[in-house]
């Protein structure tokens, strides 16, 4: 019997376990398997095979069941009451990549938009692909402002890992030489259109510190040999990315990192495996493995490993910690600091300005560029000229110019109206801000044992909102955008400040922050749990502050860096 048990345990034992297969889980899997670790990836959702499981990737507009692929109101209301809050995410084209809220409920003390998908690849299939580096302006911000805790790392720690990640995923972009937005390893930039070029020229003449560049996006514009060998190709400018890319042109776990991991022969992916708890071994003071619930059979199982990476997303990883209570960790796994679930951040958005453009009527474009303009942060850069007295930190803009097609409102009916709609409408420009949110211990998620999901597991209650700093910043985000559009001579400049609740940016972070002091943070400078050295958390949970740029590139760099460290430390027996 003892031998049989040993054998059974051996079969469930790996060098490493990675929880989650999204943008960080895929990276952890790639880096660990490439370093020779037999790695088990546990994914709570079902399998998604690259290309084969992108059922709508080639659907033409006339092939949809519903008008414009929009789901009926009754279906949105019953199945997707939270996911629909984005307005764009859940459609006939994409609904298989988003959770059903009726099956995966959560509670809100204050509104929180938790937009997500449970499947292999996670949100790496539906992400926005904008990829920006942080700078020391960001890593030093908490220390400088006395907000939250200091990051235990600086830009120099992460710079080589940004290089490493960019080289693999492929980021198209333009080097600009700005200290607040370090340049990276770029593939050729995408092109600006005529009006965007004119906007850049005119606005920069008036506001030279507000650099206008093309978005840095994880799309291949000149695939490397390594990328081609993985089966990835050049971006075809279809802009149907959220359906999954049959060309593998944008980076996802499915198209790239999991493929690379699989080719090492060291990868095992187990879908439909909901990790419910980290198992603490009091004898060793380490995590011995994880317990899962099989989503299909309802069976509980346990897997063991020397190293565990939590890459389930900021909220799901924190949920696993909070749900893992033991005599050693009565308040949740590694939660002696009581910081797990706190400091929940996002990027606040939905604020900016739009305008109409006169002229350029004889100009148009060809192709649907899956990218736009980017205007890097230009406030509070550390000098007197950019200093704001009304708020800390800053924001960047994403936007662009285009000509609306037949979807624009045109009065009347008949042949004249039809003829008008077959020609492009007037040029429009729009800038939308992405603002930094300060860490705040009161913004938190907690375990809700009263409400259970369809598997009988505890759920989450959110209690978080933006504060005065963000509200003051929003005023400037609208005003500064309008100012630039005015400076460019555009007409009918309209600032907007729309509906925003925390989470709508789909950049959740901060729920198990990195820091120097175990009393006030959960992870150390290597994303290693202060209280359990063989558990690493490298998704958005690790973020000590939010900066104002899209976070995925930083998550990936942190993951690759932590995986390299974990593999090396494991080899030396230091975990």
């Amino acid at each position: 019997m003892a031998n049989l048990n040993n054998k059974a345990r051996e079969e469930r034992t790996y060098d490493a376990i990675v929880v989650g297969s999204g943008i960080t889980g895929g990276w952890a899997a790639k880096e660990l398997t490439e370093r020779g670790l037999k790695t088990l990836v546990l994914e709570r959702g079902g399998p998604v095979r690259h290309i084969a499981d992108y059922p709508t990737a080639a659907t033409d507009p006339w092939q949809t069941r519903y008008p414009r692929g929009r789901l009926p109101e009754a279906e949105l209301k019953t199945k997707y009451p939270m996911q629909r809050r984005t307005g764009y995410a859940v459609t006939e084209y994409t609904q298989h990549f988003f959770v059903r809220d009726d099956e995966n409920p959560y509670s809100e003390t204050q509104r929180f938009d938790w937009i997500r998908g449970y499947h292999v690849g996670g949100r790496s299939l539906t992400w926005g692909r904008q990829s920006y580096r942080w700078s020391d302006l960001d890593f030093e911000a908490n220390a400088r402002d006395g907000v939250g805790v200091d990051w235990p790392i600086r830009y120099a720690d992460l710079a080589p890992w940004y290089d490493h990640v960019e080289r693999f995923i492929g980021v198209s972009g333009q080097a600009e030489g700005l200290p607040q937005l370090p340049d990276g390893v770029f593939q050729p930039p995408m092109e600006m259109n005529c009006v965007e070029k004119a906007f850049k020229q005119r606005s920069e003449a008036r506001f030279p510190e507000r650099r206008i560049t093309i978005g840095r996006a994880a799309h291949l514009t000149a695939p490397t040999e390594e990328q081609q060998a993985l089966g990835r190709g050049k971006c075809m400018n279809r802009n149907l990315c959220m359906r999954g890319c049959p060309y593998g042109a944008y980076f996802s776990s499915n198209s790239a990192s999991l493929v690379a991991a699989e080719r090492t022969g060291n990868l095992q992916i187990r879908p439909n495996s909901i990790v419910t708890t980290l198992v603490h071994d009091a004898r060793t003071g380490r995590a011995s493995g994880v317990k899962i619930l099989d989503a299909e059979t309802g069976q509980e199982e346990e897997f063991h490993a020397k190293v565990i990476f939590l890459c389930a997303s900021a909220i799901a990883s924190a949920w696993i910690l909070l749900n893992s209570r033991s005599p050693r960790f009565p308040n949740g796994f590694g939660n002696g600091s009581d910081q797990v679930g706190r400091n929940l951040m996002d990027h606040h958005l939905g604020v900016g300005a739009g305008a109409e453009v006169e002229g350029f009527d004889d100009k148009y474009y060809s192709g649907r560029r899956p990218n736009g303009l980017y205007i890097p942060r230009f406030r509070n850069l550390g000098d007197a000229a950019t200093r704001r007295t009304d708020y800390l930190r800053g924001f960047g803009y994403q936007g662009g110019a285009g000509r609306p097609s037949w979807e624009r409102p045109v009065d009347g009916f008949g042949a004249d109206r039809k003829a008008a709609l077959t020609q492009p409408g007037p040029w429009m420009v729009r800038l939308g801000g992405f603002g930094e949110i300060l860490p705040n211990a009161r913004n938190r998620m907690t375990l809700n044992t009263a409400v259970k999901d369809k598997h009988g597991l505890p759920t989450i209650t959110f209690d978080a909102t933006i504060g005065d700093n963000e509200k003051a910043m929003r005023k400037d985000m609208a005003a500064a955008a309008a100012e630039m559009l005015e400076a460019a001579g555009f007409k009918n400049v309209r600032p907007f400040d729309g509906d925003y609740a925390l989470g709508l940016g789909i950049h959740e972070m901060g729920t198990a922050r990195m820091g120097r002091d175990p009393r006030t943070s959960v992870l150390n400078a290597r994303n290693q749990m202060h209280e359990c050295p063989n558990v690493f958390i490298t998704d958005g949970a690790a973020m000590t502050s939010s900066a104002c740029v899209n976070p995925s590139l930083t998550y990936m760099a942190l993951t690759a860096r932590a995986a390299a460290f974990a593999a090396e430390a494991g080899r030396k027996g230091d975990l």
Partner: protein
Amino acid sequence: MTAPMLNRRDAFAGALATLWAVPVVVHAQAATAVPAWTPKALSADEARTLAAACERIMPATDTPGAVAVGVPQFIDRAMADWFEPADVQQLRAGLASLDAQARSRFKAPFAALSGERQDALLRAAEAEGKAASRPHWFPALREFVTVGYFTSEPGATKALRYDPVPGDYRGCVPLKEIGRAWAT
């Protein structure tokens, strides 16, 4: 609750359609022959009115019109499984009032009127819609005719330009070179 209700409604509509499977043919101005079709949500009379209105809103010109590309069927299908019940009611009431106006002013069903007379009634409906303080059926119908038309294969590929796989992005191209608005 929702799913069984929907199924029951579908079954009911199907039974009706079998009993009263009246082929819908647009008599009036559509130059091309229109294949008969069996509406899912509308009565045959309503479908005739709808088809005639669709064709005046998006007529055949150098490119096909609404009827030839199947816009009435598109709207009928959406009424069966996509519209909110209140929107279905609103549109049916709109079609009914259009037909009633036709009968009272011109002593004939809307679908049988000349294009000129149909246009006069539609112009009146548009004006009524602009003056209305609440959502009105005319702009809603016009929007759905427009969506149905430009998301149809002929609408997207003939009236507009459609390129499923552009390959390159060119940011600054003379409009003349493209000729028409992009469908997507």
